[in-house]
């Protein structure tokens, strides 16, 4: 008699949150490790992306009440805000170059 087969490989909310934690930690490491402040600025998009992945994962797996795509919306706004912050930071760094 054939028993139940092995479980299919599947990603769940815990896996998504693990990946999000890795991205946030990589961003913090980037911001802390670089001696060059403009290079350390690259940690901001990484951290924002980690938060965005967590929000999108919540929206995909665990959004029970309220608008279901709220997490996706917040992830999108985080990506846009990260780009704006990088543009501002590198613009200020470019200005400092002439001094």
């Amino acid at each position, binding site marked *: 008699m054939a028993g139940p087969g092995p479980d299919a490989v599947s990603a769940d909310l815990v896996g998504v949150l693990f990946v999000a934690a890795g991205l946030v930690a990589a961003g913090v*490491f980037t911001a802390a490790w670089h001696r060059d402040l403009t290079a350390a600025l690259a940690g901001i998009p990484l951290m924002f992306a980690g938060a*965005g992945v967590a929000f999108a994962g919540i929206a*995909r797996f*665990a959004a029970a009440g309220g608008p279901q795509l709220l997490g996706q919306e917040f992830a999108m*706004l985080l990506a846009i805000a990260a780009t704006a912050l990088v543009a501002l930071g590198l613009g200020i760094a470019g200005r400092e170059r002439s001094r």
Partner: protein
Amino acid sequence: MDSLQTIGFYVSSGVSLAGGLGVALLTRRDQRGVALGVFGLGLAGIYLSLSAGYAAVVALICYAGCALMFASPQYRRVDAVVGPVWRQLGAIGAALLLAVLAYSAFRGDFAYAGYFGGTFGAANLGRLLFAHDALATEAVAVLVTVALAGAAAAWRVRDRTR
């Protein structure tokens, strides 16, 4: 989540984490720009496998822009004044943060819910952005406008003083 989405999620996560480590560890700015582009590609794949296709497109465009800015030779190096001990403490802090976040994700008791948002979600997201959360959308629009105008003004001052 079916098998194809699961494989896409894990592959994209690996690509994204590799790109993030490249951003953290590579020393040349063009290499960092390429690594950030790879990171954005992996992030878009993660969003796509989480049925967030519209967010994937937006993230891909935003992170490609970030990668181009970081790969540009136009900004100068600004050295921090902190010593190597503080940098190493920061790296240890990042490792501790990873441990805490991973532990809380592992021990968390989450309520799972069914998902009915569609694979791309552009129409529903548009309704959210412009009807439900119009104030947040306008706040982000103001932030982007101020940031880009400030960046353009700063670069213009630099060009004048050359």
